[in-house]
């Protein structure tokens, strides 16, 4: 087991806790940069998609995993980002100017939505965001001037740094750079006082309030930051899809994002990447499952939602900390070997918590 000898207070908030971390994460980034040498276009496209999902996952993770606010309508932010980006590009704004505008717009939309509905807690918030998701989907259909309605909106693929977005290697690098940047931004937000306030709100609103955290402000801020990340992911998603239709941004996408953070592991940024890998490869997984099932069941369209639901229920009931939690357990097992005890992570017996006052 590794013991970190702390000599400075600032060590508590270091991004890399020790040299091992530095080594492994640098190696990971090097491998990711070198990937186009070994993989073909199809896999690069898949990995780009996983990067995009991870960015969206970071957005939702900050809101749900770190601030404890459920959102069932996050596809709306993806939609806002994607449509704003496509609209700006269509009107001749270059890529490097469009992305910051998208981030700002999504941030403002997040704040505008966040401020009125954040007086609600728990389930009411979940219901309200669900309704907002539906309304947003409807707006995408009906606001034809801006979104092209049901006809859809082609996304221009402009030149950027002299390269085209049709080039999958270039697009992969764009997604990778944005993912790393988003990761750094998220880590830094979360180790700043703002991030600490988010976590405090998640763990106990009353305690946070007594320590001087302005609940309304920080919840709205969390919503806005989350919206900004998700909007960025939406802009990249627009390039990935190439043609925007309103029904992409439906409730199923919102729930997929939730599945992502639950499977990855609530309350960890590692979890967003694990979850994104899982969600990104889920269709392939389902395709493989289909082959092994008898054709009467395997060819059913209902198989996908059913597996989706089963995985969700399974993780909520048996592995609430997700893949990252499982990874921590395995790591701890080897660190403590042979003294690891199952009880370390045993679910505590709890009673119904009451929201009533």
């Amino acid at each position: 087991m590794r013991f970190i000898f702390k000599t400075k207070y600032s060590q508590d908030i270091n991004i890399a806790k020790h040299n091992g971390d530095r080594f492994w994460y640098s190696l990971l980034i090097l491998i990711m940069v070198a990937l186009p040498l070994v993989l073909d276009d199809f896999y690069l496209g898949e990995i780009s998609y996983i990067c995009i999902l991870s960015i969206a996952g970071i957005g939702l993770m900050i809101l749900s995993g770190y601030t404890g606010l459920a959102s069932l309508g996050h596809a709306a932010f993806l939609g806002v980002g994607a449509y704003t980006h496509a609209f700006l590009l269509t009107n001749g704004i270059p890529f490097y100017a469009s992305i910051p505008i998208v981030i700002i717009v999504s941030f403002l939309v997040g704040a505008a939505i966040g401020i009125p509905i954040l007086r609600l807690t728990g389930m009411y918030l979940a219901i309200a965001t669900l309704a907002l998701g539906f309304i947003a989907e409807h707006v995408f259909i009906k606001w034809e001037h801006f979104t092209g309605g049901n006809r859809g909106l082609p996304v221009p693929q402009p030149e950027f740094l002299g390269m085209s977005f049709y080039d999958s290697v270039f697009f992969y690098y764009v997604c990778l750079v944005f993912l790393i940047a988003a990761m750094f931004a998220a880590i830094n937000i979360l180790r700043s006082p703002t991030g600490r306030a988010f976590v405090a709100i998640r763990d106990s609103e009353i305690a946070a309030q007594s320590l001087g955290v302005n609940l309304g402000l920080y919840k709205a801020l969390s919503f806005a930051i989350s919206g900004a990340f998700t909007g960025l992911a939406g802009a990249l998603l627009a390039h990935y899809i190439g043609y925007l239709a309103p029904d992409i941004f439906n409730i199923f996408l919102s729930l997929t994002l939730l599945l992502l953070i639950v499977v990855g592991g609530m309350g960890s940024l590692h979890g967003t990447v694990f979850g994104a890998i899982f969600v990104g490869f889920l269709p392939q997984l389902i395709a493989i499952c289909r082959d092994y099932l008898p054709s009467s069941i395997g060819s059913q369209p209902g198989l996908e939602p059913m597996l989706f639901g089963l995985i969700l229920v399974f993780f909520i009931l048996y592995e609430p900390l997700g893949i990252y939690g499982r990874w921590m357990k395995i790591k701890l097992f080897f660190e403590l070997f042979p003294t690891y005890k199952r009880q370390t992570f045993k679910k505590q017996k709890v009673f119904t918590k009451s929201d009533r006052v």
Partner: protein
Amino acid sequence: MQLIQLIIDGVASGCIYGLVALGFVLIYKATETINFAQGDILMLGAFVAYSLIGIIGVDYLTGFALTVLIIAVFGFFLDAVVVRQIIGQPAFATVMLTIGLGFIFRGFASIYWGTDIFSFSTPFSGKITEFNGLIISYVNLSIIVGTAVLMSALYFFFTFSKIGVAMRASSENQLAAYYMGIPVKFIFSLIWSISAGVAAVAGVLLAPITLVDTSISLIGLKAFAAAVLGGFGSIPGAIVGGIIIGIVEQLCGTYENYLFEGVREISAYLVLILTLIIYPRGLFSDKAEVKKV
């Protein structure tokens, strides 16, 4: 006259929302969890009724009763086996769990029954009655009467029967109910079974209008608006909220030209958001259950 006609139609569809909302409210009052799978249970109810009445050929009333019974038993075990395990977890966990369950039900229905649209014959299909120039279809009438009967049955059940009183006691204060010797876990499972049964009633009553396919589970989402409007802790509130939502939807549909295009589909959600922003307590809530920041 057209207005009254619209209101009658609205009341009928509102009763369905109200019944589904009633399911939310019963479960919420007792266990403080929200069952996002309520709409999917309604869908299962409609499908089971289709199997019994449409395929096997049981007569309507027997099929109706059997469906409600099957779904109620299903609801009981749903709580006893699955949902009970996450008591005490944060609200987020229950939300995700019930959403996942909803997906499983929907997937199961489309695998078992297929994705076609089904219908079965009811004694009410295609019959209408005229009253002072108002046209009322028997289907709508059956929904309104069915809701009224169910509501009064539930009222008597909760007021006079021993189990009903025990249910109210457990909703009020779990610990005290335990001390009084009430089997709280069993009572909670019973509440789930009643709420599933109510959803099944709504499903069977609704089947002649929307026909039976997997998309009717979306009703569950609109019923949230009804429950929130009614104050989420109040049984009459759920029905009144449902009826208001139904009427608003009808009116928005008819006067769409004066508002904006497509307002009908989202009117329920708009009402929901507005209620939450302006008056989150809801119309019938007796205490301030929504914490404010």
